[in-house]
């Protein structure tokens, strides 16, 4: 790996920050102040982090209900996200969207759909716009293994191939869609791994390795910028918590606790941190300082959210149409 130490620490810091934000949300969720269904990203941090590290500010991302990691990795404002989760007027979506509908126009995140598969064509269309406008921007679509069941995925990929659109499809295969394992929904690997290798750059990789994700995404992004068309990257990972809400809200009995344990052992944040420590890229001092900074940042974001005003009935009828 030829990544500079600073870049590697950057990857680590982004992952750690996402993790700590998710943990804090989890730990406070039962207080019932964040009245919005949260889908936590714990265990998948390497993917958003690695992919977004390969992007520029004006590249686009499109994501799904499990979007906190994507939003933050792409540069999203933490206080605005927390305010959105607290249903405040200062939220990135002014309290109209909630946890599943984050937006951050300044960083190319034009809004998030909670319809599974719904963002895939939208991200494809953003790629079309970039191509038509002759911009060298790239559009990345994050979606789950569940979304790969949807026909819009096939239709979108066909169109992107046809037009050689600058789109990178990043499938986060975390093994589950709510309580349904991939085995009850897919028959083996997705056909796109083998089916279109002549037309499509595709790869199935360890989604818990941020450097591998970064390197693969970078290759795909460069191809896209050069006008060589779309890519499809399947990142194998795991959803360590339940589908939504906090740990205690995950129903029992649908998955083997040993499976969860095995993946906890493979935690992308801990593993990468241990590796960087072992290789001397990180030391305890940087680590502690970073943890402290992140904790302070999170405290501030939660405070901001809690102290922000709530939207009122008078706001309800705003924003249906754009002038």
């Amino acid at each position: 790996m030829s990544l500079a130490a600073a870049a590697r620490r950057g990857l680590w810091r982004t992952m750690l920050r996402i993790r700590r934000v998710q943990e804090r949300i989890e730990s406070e969720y039962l207080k019932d102040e964040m009245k919005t269904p949260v889908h936590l990203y714990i265990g998948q941090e390497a993917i958003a982090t690695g992919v977004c590290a390969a992007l520029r500010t004006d590249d686009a991302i499109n994501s799904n209900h499990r979007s906190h990691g994507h939003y933050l990795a792409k540069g999203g404002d933490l206080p605005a996200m927390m305010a959105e989760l607290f249903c405040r007027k200062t939220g990135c979506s002014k309290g109209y969207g909630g946890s599943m509908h984050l937006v951050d126009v300044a960083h190319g995140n034009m809004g998030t759909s909670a319809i599974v598969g719904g963002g895939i064509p939208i991200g494809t269309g953003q790629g079309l716009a970039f191509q038509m406008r002759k911009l060298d921007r790239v559009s990345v679509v994050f979606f789950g293994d569940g979304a790969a069941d949807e026909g819009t995925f096939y239709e979108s990929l066909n169109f992107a191939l046809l037009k050689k659109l600058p789109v990178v499809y990043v499938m986060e295969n975390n093994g589950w869609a709510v309580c349904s394992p991939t085995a009850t929904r897919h028959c083996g690997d997705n056909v796109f791994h083998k089916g279109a290798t002549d037309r499509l750059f595709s790869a199935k990789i360890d989604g818990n390795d941020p450097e591998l994700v970064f390197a693969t995404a970078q290759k795909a992004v460069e191809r896209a910028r050069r006008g060589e068309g779309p890519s499809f990257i399947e990142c194998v990972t795991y959803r360590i918590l339940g589908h939504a809400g906090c740990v205690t809200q995950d129903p029992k009995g649908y998955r083997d606790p040993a499976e969860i344990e095995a993946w906890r052992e493979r935690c992308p944040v801990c593993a990468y941190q241990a590796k960087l420590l072992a290789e001397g890229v990180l030391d305890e001092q940087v680590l502690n300082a970073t943890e402290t900074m992140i904790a302070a940042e999170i405290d501030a974001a939660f405070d901001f959210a809690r102290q922000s005003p709530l939207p009122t009935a008078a706001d309800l009828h705003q924003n249906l149409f754009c002038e």
Partner: protein
Amino acid sequence: MPWSRIKPDTNEPDFLSQDMHGSATRAIAAGDPDSQQCGAGRRITYAEATNEALSQALSLDPSVFVMGQGVDDPSGMFGATRDLHKRFGRERVFDTPLAETALSGIAVGAALGGMRPVYFHNRPDFLLLAMDQLVNHAAKWHYMFGGAASVPLVFWACVGRGWGSAAQHSQALQGLFMHVPGLKLIMPSTCFDAKGLMLAAIKDNNPVLIIDHRMNFKQRGLVPEEPYTVPIGKGVIRRSGRDCTVVAVSHLVTDAFLAAQDLAGEGIEVEVIDPRTLRPLDEELILASVAKTGRLVICDTGWKTGGVTAEIAAMVVEKGFSSLKAPIARVANPDLPTPSGYTLEQAYYIGQDDIRRAIIKTVRGSEA
């Protein structure tokens, strides 16, 4: 989720229950030769009543099966499908890929192939991916082939509300489906009807869409143990009154009933009608009531413009104009996507107070 506590388990209101069961039972006996008179029943939840209906249908008819994303989840879709896969096997109660477009067509094909699918959707929002099969195919198949083939299937979806569900997870889309010829459209409001209408829908040889509401799932009501059907297309009077007719659907029946009870104290006697089926609609029942009261308030959980309240108002002004003594009032959700924040939700959703205000205005001619 913790904020589901905002709607705790409750008993159904005491809908002059004689009347309710009386007329439901009479309707069954009259409209459906196969159904039996039912005992008084036990008090169980709406979800349990639905589960019992499915379980009995699966027992009675080997061609019935239940499909849908998550129907075998441990949570059992609020309990409505709980453990059915254990009792009837995963061949007959199965989870599906997230592919609502094709799977709705697969349900249509299975029906054409001799089965009776029940296809559950967690939220009606996802039915928007199934519109082609529902509207272009299922609803038209019998007519388009001059009656040569039929499509006995049940689409069933449960409206989300509250909990910050937001714009894509909280839609009550009956206003769309009410426009589609060839579909039957059911919205139960009581535990008794949840069971009886589910069984009626499964028994029906046509595509039937049931739209449930999460607000109903935790209420408890009297439900006979034996299988029975409630006739599709027959409404019921939940409370009699002479001053104003209120037609309400789904959980708004309870809200309308409570508003009516309250207004009785102020000397306004409200008749509350639960149509139970929106298509076919029990027009006679509504027109007869308006003929008596001369006033009409219509309440729906969906959007106002172009929705359920529009059709019922139009039907009455077309066929019952001479009875009308006052403008028809419509109480429905504002014409906006659902916002997520709870303060906005509170401003968005309608309920007992809105119904109360609309009744007063309709009866007295002013809000006061």
